[in-house]
C-alpha cells in the first residue's frame, strides 16, 4: 500500500502476503470479547474505575467505615476520659524536630497561664516540655464494642504528658477521641435510615408501579403530599415527640427511623416509573403467565433490572441524613449525651463565643464535610457507572 505510483504511471499490483482470514471482520479482539462476556456488575466496576474522584471518595468512605470497627483502638483516650487540668486546651501540634534535632513525632506540653485581663486560663505550648508520642501502647482501658477488654491504643501521650491534637472541650475531654467515637454513631445513622426508606420506597413504589390504576393514583397523591412537607420542621416535630424517658439507644433508633420516614418518596417514584416500563416486557408477562405471584415477579424478575440504579440513588441520599442528624442533634432535638455523634459534639459549638474563643470545638464539622462530599462524589460516580446508555 505504501508504494506511491509515479505520476501518470500505473499503480503497482499489491497482494498481502498474510493468510486470508474470512471472519476477520467479525472476530472480536480479546479485549472486546472480555467486554461482551463480562457481567453487568463487572462492566459497572470498569466504568466506575475510570471516575477518579469517585474512586478516591470510595476509598475515603471505606477508611471511615473501617475506623468505626476499631474506634477504641484508634482513639488516644476514652470517650469520657476527663483531664480536669486541661479544660478548653487548644490543639497541640505534632512536631518532628526539636531545635534542629530529629526526635520523632512529639508534642510540646502545655504551660498554663492565667490571663488577668480576660480572667481565662490560657494554655501555650512550652518548648521545654518535649513529650514524644508512644505508638501501640497501653493506655485507657476499654471494651471493644462493649465485649472485648483491651487497653492497646494506636498512639498515646508520653508518660505524664498530654496529646490533644484537636484540643479539649469544656470538661477537658480529648476532641480527637470524641470525634473518632462519634463517627460510629454518625455514619450508621444514615445507613439505618436508608434501610427504612429503602423498604418503604420499594414496597410502595413497587405496588404503585405494578398495579397501576387507582392504587397508583392514591399512592402518587400520597407521595406528593409527603414531598410537600418541609423536612426539617417535620423532623423537629417528630423528634420532639420522642418520649424523654427513652434510653439513648432507643432514641438513636427513633431518630434514624424518623430520618428515613421522609426520604422514600423520591425512591418510590423511581421504582414506580421503572416498573411501569418493565412490566410490559415479555419476560414479565411470561413470569405472570407461569403463575408467579406479584411479589415474586417484582422481587425476582423486575427489581434486579435496576438495582444498580437504586443503589446509586440511595448513596446520594445518605449525606442528607447525616446532615439531618447533625442538625437535629445540634438543636438538641436529636441524640443526647452520653451518646456521642458529630452533631452532639457540634451542639457544644452553638454560640458565637465558641467561634471567637475556642474555634477547635467546631472541628467535628470537618469529618461531616468530608463524608458528605465523599458520598456525593461516590454516588455520582455510581450513577454514571450504572447508566447502561453511556
Amino acid at each position: 500500500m505504501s508504494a506511491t505510483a509515479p505520476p501518470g504511471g500505473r499503480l503497482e499490483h499489491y497482494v498481502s502476503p498474510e493468510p486470508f482470514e474470512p471472519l476477520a471482520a467479525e472476530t472480536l479482539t480479546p479485549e472486546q470479547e472480555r467486554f461482551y462476556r463480562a457481567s453487568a456488575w463487572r462492566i459497572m466496576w470498569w466504568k466506575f474505575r475510570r471516575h477518579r474522584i469517585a474512586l478516591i471518595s470510595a476509598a475515603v468512605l471505606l477508611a471511615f467505615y473501617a475506623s468505626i470497627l476499631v474506634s477504641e483502638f484508634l482513639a488516644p483516650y476514652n470517650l469520657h476520659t476527663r483531664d480536669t487540668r486541661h479544660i478548653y486546651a487548644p490543639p497541640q501540634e505534632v512536631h518532628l524536630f526539636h531545635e534542629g534535632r530529629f526526635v520523632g513525632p512529639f508534642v510540646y506540653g502545655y504551660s498554663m497561664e492565667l490571663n488577668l485581663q480576660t480572667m481565662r486560663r490560657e494554655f501555650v505550648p512550652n518548648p521545654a516540655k518535649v513529650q514524644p508520642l508512644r505508638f501501640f501502647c497501653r493506655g485507657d482501658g476499654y471494651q471493644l464494642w462493649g465485649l472485648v477488654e483491651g487497653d492497646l491504643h494506636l498512639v498515646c501521650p508520653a508518660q505524664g504528658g498530654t496529646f490533644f491534637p484537636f484540643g479539649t472541650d469544656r470538661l477537658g475531654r480529648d476532641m480527637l477521641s470524641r470525634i473518632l467515637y462519634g463517627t460510629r454513631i454518625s455514619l450508621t445513622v444514615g445507613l439505618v435510615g436508608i434501610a427504612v426508606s429503602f423498604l418503604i420506597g420499594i414496597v410502595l413504589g413497587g405496588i404503585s408501579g405494578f398495579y397501576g390504576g387507582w392504587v397508583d393514583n392514591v399512592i402518587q397523591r400520597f407521595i406528593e403530599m409527603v414531598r410537600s412537607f418541609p423536612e426539617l420542621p417535620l423532623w423537629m416535630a417528630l423528634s420532639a415527640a420522642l418520649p424523654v424517658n427513652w434510653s439513648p439507644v432507643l432514641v438513636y433508633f427513633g431518630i434514624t427511623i424518623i430520618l428515613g420516614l421522609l426520604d422514600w418518596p423520591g425512591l418510590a417514584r423511581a421504582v414506580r416509573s421503572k416498573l411501569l416500563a418493565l412490566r410490559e416486557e415479555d419476560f414479565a408477562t411470561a413470569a405472570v403467565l407461569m403463575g408467579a405471584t406479584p411479589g415474586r415477579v417484582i422481587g425476582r424478575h423486575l427489581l434486579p433490572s435496576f438495582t444498580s440504579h437504586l443503589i446509586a440513588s440511595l448513596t446520594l441520599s445518605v449525606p442528607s441524613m447525616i446532615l439531618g442528624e447533625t442538625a437535629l442533634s445540634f438543636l438538641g432535638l436529636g441524640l443526647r449525651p452520653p451518646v456521642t455523634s458529630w452533631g452532639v459534639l457540634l451542639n457544644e459549638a452553638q454560640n458565637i463565643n465558641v467561634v471567637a474563643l475556642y474555634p477547635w470545638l467546631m472541628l467535628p464539622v470537618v469529618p461531616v464535610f468530608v463524608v458528605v462530599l465523599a458520598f456525593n462524589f461516590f454516588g455520582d460516580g455510581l450513577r454514571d457507572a450504572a447508566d447502561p446508555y453511556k
Partner: protein
Amino acid sequence: MLTYTVRRILIMIPTLLVISFITFSIVKLPPGDFLSNQIAELKSQGDKAALERVEFLRKQFGLDKPFVEQYAVWVGLWPAERGFSGLLQGDWGWSFEHDLPVGEVVGDRMLLSFILNFSVVLFTWAVAFPIGVYAATHQYSWGDHGLTLLGYVGLATPNFLFALVLMYFANVQFGLAIGGIMGPEYLDQPWSLAKAGSVLSHLWIPVIVIGTSGTAAMIRRLRANLLDELQKQYVVTARAKGMPQFRLLVKYPLRMALNPFVADIGNLLPSVISGSAIVAVVLSLQTSGPMLLEALRSQDQYLAGSFLMFLALLTVLGMFISDLLLAALDPRIRLTGGAAK
C-alpha cells in the same frame, strides 16, 4: 389553561386537609398536653384562681375531647365553645404559653418568614442561573471545575455552622449587630421605610447561608440539562449556519433547559424552608423557626400546629405556582396532564 388551573386548585384542597391532619397528629404525639402539665404544676402550688382559668381554657379549646374532635375544632369544622373558630375561619388558635391568640404572638413572623424564603429562592436562582450556563458552555474548563467545587462545598457544609462563622465575621469585619433579622429597635414597631431598610441590611447573611445549600443542586441540574440540549442536531445546524453564539444559546437550548429549572421551585422550597428553620434558630431571626422549636418543646399545640401548617402551606403554594409557570412555559405539560386523567 383555565381548566388546568382549576383542577390544580381542586387537588390542593384535599392535599391541605390531609397535611393538616398529619400535622396535628404529629403535634399531638407526645403524651399529655400543655395544659395538663400546667395543671399538675398549679395543683402542687395550690393556686385556685389560676387553676379555674386553666380548666376554663381546657374546656374552651376542647382539650378534654377526643383527638378527632380536637382536630375538627382546630381546623374549624366543628364549633367550639366560646366563639373560638378554626383555621378555616382564619383563626390560628390560642397560644397557651404566651397566653395570647396565636395570631398576636406570631405578629409579623410569618410575613418575615415569607420574605426570607422568597429572597432565598431569588438568590438561589440569581446565583445558579449564570453559573449553570457558564459551566455548561465551558464544560471541563477550570471555571467549570472551580464553580462546581464551590457548589459542592456549599452543599456539604452544615448550614448552622456556616451561619455561625459568617455571623462572627460579619460582626468582626463590618461591625454588624449579631443575630436578628432587623435592628432591635424596630422589633415591635409598625412597618416603615426605616424598618424595611433594617430588615434588608440584616437579610443577606441568612439568605447567603440558606441559599448556598440549594444552589449546588440547581447548578448541576441546569448544567446537565443544557449540556444535553447543546449536543442536539438543531444546535449544530444553527451553528453551521453561522448564528452568533450568544443568540444561539439564548434562543433555543436555554429555553429548553429552563423547564426543569422552573419545576425545581417545587423541590427547592421544602429544602429552603427546612434550611431557614434551623438557620433562624442559630441567628435568632424573628421568623417562624425559633418559635416553632420552642412551641414544639412546650407542647403549645396550636402555636406549633399553626406554624407547621403555615410552612406546609407555603410549600404547597410554591409547588402550585411552579406547576402553573411550567404549564404556561410548556404546553405539552398541560396536554399530557389532561390526557392522563
